[in-house]
């Protein structure tokens, strides 16, 4: 029996009459490589927002390692080890790549509170950020402003910031979205090389990526869980095929 890192029970979220996430029971095992797929508007990003605490659920619970974190603020959840990336880059665009990562590291190690000690003397923070950039092959652009990097590299910085938080659970929202296919392998390689004990949930549209990376796949449709299984099971599931070919109705349910 594998240990469950993150679990949701009957998790729901409405926006007025629209039920974006409906009654989801979901388990993410320790060290999982889990993909979350589903058509546009299926509620995948809303689901991530509920897990990270950006949005409060209208109903249901979120458990981290068995502990109820439903009422916890986003910052507290990060401290407990939930990190995420965004579908659209959210970077400190005017700062250097190294500074982007340093800010995250400083926050994690608790350095960011100190007001009267120069950041430049926190060599532990800078060392760690630099080492992380090296593993992601970003060291040679460390001094460049993020806004000056090509998009693929920016996505990598997006990943670097979340890894800098030493997460136990990493939620990746379409990490390779918008990256030209010639470069997307850099990002996928980086994700594959992440330490095995991190539980990873990845939202992804590209089925090749899903099959290459995930050992388990969950399909979301219309805000609800539609199917779950190994990639092979999902691939041979005719209903899932229908959904992706647009033959079944999958609009968000209205109440």
């Amino acid at each position, binding site marked *: 029996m594998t240990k469950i890192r993150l679990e949701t029970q009957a998790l729901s979220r409405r926006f007025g009459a629209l039920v974006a996430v409906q009654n989801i029971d979901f388990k993410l095992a320790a060290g999982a490589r889990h993909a979350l797929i589903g058509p546009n508007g299926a509620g995948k990003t809303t689901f991530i927002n509920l897990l990270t605490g950006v949005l409060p659920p209208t109903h249901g619970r979120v458990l981290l390692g068995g502990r109820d974190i439903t009422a916890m603020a986003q910052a507290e959840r*990060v401290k407990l080890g939930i990190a995420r990336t965004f579908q659209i880059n959210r970077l400190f665009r005017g700062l250097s790549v190294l*500074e982007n990562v340093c800010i995250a590291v400083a926050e994690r190690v608790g350095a960011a509170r100190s007001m009267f000690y120069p950041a430049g003397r926190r060599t532990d923070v800078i*060392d760690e950020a630099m080492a992380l950039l090296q593993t992601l092959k970003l060291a040679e652009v460390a001094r460049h402003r993020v806004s000056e990097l090509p998009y693929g590299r920016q996505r990598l910085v997006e990943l670097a910031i979340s890894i800098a938080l030493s997460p136990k659970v990493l939620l990746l929202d379409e990490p390779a979205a918008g990256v030209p296919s010639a470069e997307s392998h850099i990002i996928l390689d980086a994700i594959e090389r992440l330490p095995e004990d991190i539980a990873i949930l990845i939202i992804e549209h590209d089925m090749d990526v899903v099959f290459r990376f995930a050992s388990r796949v969950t399909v979301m449709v219309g805000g609800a869980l539609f199917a779950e299984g190994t990639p092979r099971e999902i691939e041979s599931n005719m209903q899932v095929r229908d959904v992706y070919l647009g033959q079944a109705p999958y609009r968000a349910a209205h109440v």
Partner: protein
Amino acid sequence: MSVAVSRAGDAAAPIANPAARALMRRHRLRWWEALPWLAGIAFYFAFPDYLSFGCDLIVTILFALSLDLALGYAGIITLGHAAFFGTGAYAVGMLASYNVWTEPITALLLAALAAAVIGFLSGLVLLRTAGLTLLMLTLCTMALLEQAANMGHAYTGGFDGLPSLPIAPVFGVFEFNPLYADTQYLFALGVLFACFVFVRTLVYSPFGQSLTGIRENILRMHAIGSPVRRRVLVCYTISAALAGIAGGLWAQTNAYVNLSALGLDRAATVLIVLILGGYGRLYGAFIGAVIYLALEHFLAQIYPTAWQLGLGLLLVLIALFARGGILGLGEALWRRYGGKLSQRRRDGPTAP
């Protein structure tokens, strides 16, 4: 314990990277940082007839510096920063006018405290909002204080203010001479220096770095677990305290306080000064104040309308073409022309 370090055991020493070295050196003093202070002292000897102008200049620099912390570093867009300037000015003015407290240094600390309390209390509720609502709330808070000062004329002197404030000698020795502002000038310069050292330290600390992060992308700061609201509130309170010191200093060097300390005029002027110089840059406050006040002093007296027209055109041009202000413009030019050579020289031996 960290993912990154455990994976990078065999990598070359990361500190050798120029980016890391640049970051480690950033807080160090550079030679040109002595220039404003040398200029400040030189001004004392070179322009003995302009020392009260010099006091105004110092007060404006300090006020703009306080705004820079809130606006340039934490990204709080406020139209009401004079609320704190005025609080400090009235704190000093009322304490002195009723002979409660006239010692100038401790009076400034009390001004800072009063402004910090107002900043903290208003920030507690205002900083939850953003955009137009925040702009309006800061503006209304300031207007509220202005009207309160107007209403409480029994204590504040109302529209006429409190004239001829008694100020005790600095360190019990150096008297403020109402006719010749030499003591005032040096005192003000000293206060500015102390405040600047404080702000500079703050800006280069990890705390300051996280404020920059909040300005650059607040959503990301939330996502990396930063207590954004608390940081912004702390920053706003410190900024208010510094503005309070600026206001107190203004009251002391002029030996009066009136409603102009709290008005939209003053709030807009300091915003213009800071943006003219370049915000989020620490020295923008200095450049902006010197240029603005010098132009105002010499042009506004002779051609007030032309001054206003020129200022308007300047603002429009800055907003359209030079968003970093004068310092930003200088940096851009340096990067394009002057910077190339020296950067190549610096990178040469260490480039991978």
